[in-house]
């Protein structure tokens, strides 16, 4: 099976062809924004990295910035740096270069803000014009990596949107693609079920270690997680305990064997289903998926969002280079389906099967990969400051 994508050097094909302006550190976001605002079609990806990060968090930030640059949806990269930051433009450029064209401007080298601005605009114009020459070509569907997250979960999530999403995940894995799901806290109580599908002892133990670490952090913190896991919205949607939420959440990954456990932002090495050790916070998690090389994200919604979707039509899908396919599972929210790419609520009312809706999600992978805009892509001027996940000491 095929989609029409953008062939890349040393990496799977992309489904979008963006030129990005990537600051090396949050301090220089303004310059990155100003450079990109003067060039048509360039996308600034502003973020929160700062020199307050240490050790594993600093490595994670570096992996994230490299992963953003190397993602197949990106045609080329303009790095914007200061010259005194913990992760330099030169270090990042070296890692991105094997995959695509990368340029850098820094205040240190150009001498001041205005010179860096002028130089940046000139370089960026050229990158954007180059990108406009690239055409879509026939690419193997095995090139696709899809990230999966659920949100606004209620009891119906596990009956409609999650199993349909899982069905689509299984179809992609069958065709040689990669699927990643995450949210370590939402394995608690369901870890043994997922672990039983691990391909070997190493994968099984790595998975269980992630959950044990999370459980011991909860025990040490000494606070009841009810109200966060499950959230008040989840509780309103019928979820009672984290165990129940987890057992319903893992369904979204489908039934394939678990071939690996990834760190936040780590790229999967071979085809199959992966679990990424990471946060439940959507924006941070989407960034981790994108960093890991995912070209598409699926967001499976249940019924546990009493505020409804009208008030947050694009949230939290604010990475403008990462298309998100939103799936709605609750028939009680049917009047809000205009905010969703796929409606799975017919499963609840008995008018469609999980298999049918799963197939339409899979077909949507191919359409979106071939250029069809998602609902969020079509509406959004909305962009988020990218939040790079940190879980250690911040100075």
């Amino acid at each position, binding site marked *: 099976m095929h989609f029409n994508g953008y062939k890349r050097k040393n990496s799977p094909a992309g489904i979008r062809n963006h030129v990005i302006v990537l600051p090396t550190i949050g301090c220089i976001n303004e310059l990155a924004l100003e450079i990109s605002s003067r060039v048509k079609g360039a996308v600034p990806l502003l973020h929160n990295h700062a020199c307050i990060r240490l050790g594993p968090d600093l490595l994670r930030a570096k992996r994230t910035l490299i992963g953003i640059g190397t993602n197949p949806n990106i045609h080329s990269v303009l790095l914007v740096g200061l010259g005194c930051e913990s992760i330099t433009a030169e270090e990042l450029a070296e890692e991105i270069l094997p995959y695509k064209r990368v340029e850098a401007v820094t205040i240190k080298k150009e001498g001041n803000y205005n010179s860096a601005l002028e130089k940046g605009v000139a370089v960026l114009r050229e990158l954007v014009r180059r990108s406009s020459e690239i055409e879509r070509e026939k690419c193997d569907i095995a090139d696709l990596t899809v990230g999966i997250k659920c949100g606004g979960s209620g009891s119906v999530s*596990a009956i409609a949107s999650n199993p349909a999403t899982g069905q689509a995940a299984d179809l992609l894995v069958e065709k040689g693609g990669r699927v990643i799901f995450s949210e370590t806290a939402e394995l608690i109580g369901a870890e043994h079920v997922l672990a039983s599908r691990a391909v070997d002892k190493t994968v099984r133990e790595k998975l269980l270690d992630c959950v044990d670490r999370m459980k011991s952090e909860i025990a040490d913190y000494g*606070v009841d997680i009810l109200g966060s896991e499950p959230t008040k919205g989840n509780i309103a949607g*019928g979820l*009672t305990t984290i*165990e129940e939420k987890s057992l319903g959440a893992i369904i979204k990954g489908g039934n394939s064997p678990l071939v690996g456990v990834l760190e936040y932002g780590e790229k999967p090495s071979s085809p199959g289903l992966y679990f990424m050790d990471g946060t439940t916070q959507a924006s941070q998690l989407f960034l981790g998926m994108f960093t890991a090389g995912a070209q598409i994200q699926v967001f499976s919604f*249940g019924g546990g969002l009493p505020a409804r979707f009208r008030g947050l039509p694009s949230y939290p899908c604010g990475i403008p280079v990462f298309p998100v396919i939103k799936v709605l599972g609750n028939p009680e929210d049917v009047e809000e389906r205009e905010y969703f790419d796929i409606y799975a609520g017919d499963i609840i009312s008995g008018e469609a099967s999980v298999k049918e809706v799963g197939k339409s999600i899979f077909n949507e992978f191919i359409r979106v990969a071939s250029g069809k805009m998602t609902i969020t892509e079509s509406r959004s001027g909305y962009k988020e400051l990218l939040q790079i996940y940190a879980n250690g000491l911040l100075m």
Partner: protein
Amino acid sequence: MKRAIMINKDDNVATVLKGVKKGEKIAVISTENEVIKNIEAGEEIATGHKIAVNSINKGEIVTKYGESIGTATDWIDQGTHVHIHNVRSKVKYGD
């Protein structure tokens, strides 16, 4: 008749697919859409919330997907709402 889905045959709760009022008759169905039994709602239960398919003892494991989702903190009558007021997670915190 309104339906509630029982995901595993060993479960003692089912998920109400459309909100029910007290006294309403409910068909408890399997994932294969077969009727397992008919019960009566003991109280109002909202869409997506859980109903006890049989009575559950205080301290008994509440089972969904054939797995434990926590422990009953009270006696739960058949047909009544199963939620945070009568079930607790087994996740430990503090001493």
